[in-house]
């Protein structure tokens, strides 16, 4: 941890600045001064401040510049500041704040280095530190990669500690007291004789006081908020219908729009007939887009009806027409040059020269994100400036894309990030913001909310890529002596970066993510990635490459264990090379009472996946009933290094597991005539309450650094379920979704 921290300290310097009626605390940045979003007139060329805390007459506001998409990030980030500031979370305001490159995510690229998370060698640590440089240079304010907590853990606590130190100095002046005799408590400074000064009252004085360069952080033993479950700051609004998602934004004289775009993704539009649509109730305008139309109306319903009534002449798609052809394109990637080979231990070719004991092929389908809130945004174009309200995971990218569309400077665009009705990677895409901006540009002066129908949302996603795995393995006296694993998929990096107008260089590590770097010692072991052409647009889907590779890899490990005649738990423990990982596997074995006799028809399956630096072990228990398979129980153990909010970590695991199980059981995106066949929740469903298993979670803290937990719960769910189905029925399923091969009891 030391090296990365030193690099952070060199480029970030704590500071404060006066604002109307108060003071903001954050970091000065000298080398690449990104604009400070909260200071109105920073002097040209001067260093600027990235604020995390604002204290004024209204009290304390904490800026949590990451997307709140359900993962509880606003609560955990605010708790980091509040902990050091000695103030309760119920006494602060928490704001996402404006888009700013200064809120870049320094930890976002750490997962993309060709070093396993278990590799703590000086070279690996050096390279991880270096990834912070492009992260800063690009200034990407991005929520993803389970990186928000590790990115913020030091910088946000330091901001809180610096603010507290300055408030103590201010109070010492105000009270004529010795600073060392003062203490802080619940948002006030308290003197030995019991006088108190609220932080708000000290703010004007605090604005002129020098901020300590490197304030001390509380030792963990003194934490009052961190390490303990906090009530979420967004819970009350979300349980009373008062939380504002972008679909809820209301502005005076606002109009409502929807889009209808080419069902053959990427294809253009030859022409359209809007005569019927224009005469329909409530319709105000029809806006042509490059690949479709937007209808603007006085009510979203009228817009939806009119968009459906349009007749449009579509251009064809550039990709193959049906899903089998897409799989063939992926399979043909195995015939070409490989994209990556980050792991090549021993001599796999020699070990397998006399043939494999076990070989096979696995498949995973395209998947949609299907967030509960269909994608939407409000945009308002007036006086050469744009205001955008959108639940989104990449505000600085939204600014960039909107400015380009409107042909204005980026400082004329303001992005207001609301709560997200689900993200899972979908809202790191900018397509829904661009359509809203295009509609606004055609309706100058009028705020317009552009909401995609569920059908448009599902058929115009950037999908989790389909993927194929091939393996050949050799067993030697109850252990794996050779494993040759080849993985092929369209490149998420290539597809995603092309939409960001950024080049991709080198191999796409997501193709082999959580397959090449697992802490198993196999003497002859090779993991090779093959890049298939991008056909449908593909993107990050909760846990990215680990979402399919966890299934491939851990199903294969289970196959090997059974072929070797070993218990899957013992088989893993004997291969394991990492003690932190051993801890979670042993914990989940105890939690699930692994090895205990099961009643007839029941089966337990285990899976272990190290993703985003988090070793995660899950056990699924199923029962085979006359109505089909039912998932009864899931046990999970994870190690996040430092657990800041145990109840929220539990929630993220419950979420990640149900998300992974839903996809594994029933989800796939397929094509026919180049059109997506799934359009709504009747044919792209997810687990319902009646089908959702009991879930028990244990959180460990043996890892060497703090980790994020939004994604790691998902990858082990599919293989643990597949391995449980094998244990219960003897049927090995090598293709997702499982419902293609086995019946599930999905009755409510």
């Amino acid at each position, binding site marked *: 941890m030391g090296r990365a921290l030193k690099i952070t300290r060199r480029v970030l310097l704590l500071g404060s600045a006066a604002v109307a009626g108060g003071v903001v605390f954050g970091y000065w940045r000298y080398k690449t001064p990104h604009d400070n979003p909260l200071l109105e007139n920073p002097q040209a060329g001067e260093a600027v401040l990235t604020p995390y805390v604002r204290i004024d007459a209204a009290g304390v506001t904490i800026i949590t510049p990451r997307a709140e998409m359900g993962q509880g990030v606003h609560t955990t980030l605010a708790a980091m500041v509040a902990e050091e500031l000695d103030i309760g979370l119920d006494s602060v305001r928490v704001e996402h704040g404006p888009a700013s490159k200064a809120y870049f995510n320094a930890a976002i690229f750490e997962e993309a280095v060709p070093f396993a998370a278990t590799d703590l060698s000086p070279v690996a640590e050096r390279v991880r530190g270096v990834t912070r440089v492009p992260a800063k240079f690009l200034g990407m304010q991005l929520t993803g990669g389970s990186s928000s907590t590790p990115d913020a853990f030091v910088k946000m606590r330091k901001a809180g500690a610096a603010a507290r130190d300055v408030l103590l100095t201010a109070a010492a002046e105000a009270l004529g007291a010795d600073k060392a005799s003062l203490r802080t408590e619940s948002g006030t400074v308290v003197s030995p004789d019991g006088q108190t000064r609220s932080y708000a009252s000290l703010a004007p004085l605090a604005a002129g006081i020098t901020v300590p360069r490197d304030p001390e952080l509380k030792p963990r033993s003194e934490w009052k908020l961190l390490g303990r479950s906090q009530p979420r700051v967004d819970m009350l609004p979300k349980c009373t219908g008062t*939380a504002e998602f972008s679909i809820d934004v209301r502005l005076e004289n606002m109009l409502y729009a929807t889009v209808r775009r080419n069902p053959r993704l990427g294809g253009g539009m030859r022409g359209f007939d809007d005569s019927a649509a224009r005469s329909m109730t409530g319709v105000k305008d029809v806006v042509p887009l490059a690949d479709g139309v937007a209808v603007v109306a006085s*009510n979203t319903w009228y817009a939806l009806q009119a968009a459906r009534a349009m007749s449009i002449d579509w251009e064809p798609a550039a990709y193959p027409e049906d899903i089998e052809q897409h799989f063939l394109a992926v399979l043909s990637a195995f015939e070409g040059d490989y994209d990556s080979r980050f792991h090549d231990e021993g001599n796999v070719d020699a070990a397998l020269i006399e043939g494999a004991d076990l070989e096979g092929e696995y498949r995973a389908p395209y998947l949609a994100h299907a*967030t509960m809130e269909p994608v939407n945004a409000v945009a308002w174009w007036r006086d050469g400036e744009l205001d955008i309200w959108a639940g989104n995971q990449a505000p600085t990218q939204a600014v960039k894309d909107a400015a380009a569309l409107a042909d204005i400077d980026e400082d004329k665009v303001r992005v207001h990030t609301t709560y997200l009705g689900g993200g899972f990677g979908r809202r790191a895409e900018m397509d829904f913001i661009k359509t809203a901006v295009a509609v606004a540009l055609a309706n100058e002066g009028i705020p317009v909310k552009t909401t995609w129908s569920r059908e448009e949302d599902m058929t115009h996603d950037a999908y989790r890529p389909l993927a194929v795995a091939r393996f050949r393995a050799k067993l030697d006296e109850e252990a794996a002596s050779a494993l040759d694993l080849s993985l092929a998929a369209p490149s998420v990096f290539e597809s995603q970066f092309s939409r960001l107008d950024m080049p991709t260089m080198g191999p796409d590590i997501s193709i082999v993510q959580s397959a090449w770097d697992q802490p198993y010692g196999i003497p002859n072991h090779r993991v090779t990635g093959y890049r298939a052409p991008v056909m449908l647009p593909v993107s990050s889907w909760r846990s990215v490459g680990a979402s399919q590779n966890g299934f491939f890899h851990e199903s294969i490990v289970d196959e090997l264990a059974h072929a070797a005649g070993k218990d899957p738990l013992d088989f893993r423990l004997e291969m394991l090379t990492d003690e932190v990982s051993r801890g979670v596997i042993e914990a989940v074995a105890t939690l699930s009472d692994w090895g205990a006799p099961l009643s007839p028809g029941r089966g337990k399956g285990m899976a272990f996946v190290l993703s985003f630096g988090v070793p995660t072990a899950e056990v699924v228990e199923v029962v085979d009933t006359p109505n089909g398979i039912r998932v009864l129980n899931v046990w999970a153990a994870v190690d996040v290094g430092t657990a800041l909010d145990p*109840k929220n970590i539990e*929630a993220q695991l419950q979420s990640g597991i149900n998300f992974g199980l839903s996809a594994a059981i029933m989800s796939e995106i397929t094509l026919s005539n180049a059109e997506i066949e799934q359009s709504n929740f009747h044919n792209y*469903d997810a687990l319902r309450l*009646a089908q959702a298993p009991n879930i028990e979670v244990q959180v460990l803290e043996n890892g060497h650094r703090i980790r994020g937990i939004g994604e790691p719960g998902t990858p082990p769910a599919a293989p643990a379920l597949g391995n449980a189905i094998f244990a219960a029925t003897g049927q090995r399923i090598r293709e997702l979704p499982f419902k293609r091969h086995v019946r599930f009891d999905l009755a*409510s």
Partner: protein
Amino acid sequence: MKLKVNGRDHEVDVDGSMPLLWALRDELGITGPKYGCGIAMCGACTVHVDGRAVRSCVLPVASVQGEVTTIEGLGTPESLHAVQAAWVEEQVAQCGYCQPGQIMSAAALLAGTPSPSDAEIDRALSGNLCRCGTYPRIRAAVHSAAARLREE
């Protein structure tokens, strides 16, 4: 057209085939009920009509007979309904988008079935989809809300 929502009378001038959801959201500015699917498959739009849970995304506004209650009318941040209080206590919500619908379905269930079994909870709430997978806490919160309501 006249609509009584959360105890207040409203006049809406819309096509009678417009689903209640869009009259509430875009005409009256009542945004607690959410658009999720438009085909009664996800439950995010659930409101009460005379106490009964209905999917407002497929209910034509002209056919609404009775008083409409939305999440905003069930309880407020200052004065929570027992179901909302249980939801807060159990820390159910994640992204939160489906929760107004979940809560309205649960409140309608408990109004008629004060001590529901797990099977009854399953039947009443399985029309409400949650992509964040908050189901374990939803189940706990329904039981907790039932206990609260029995004490009231």
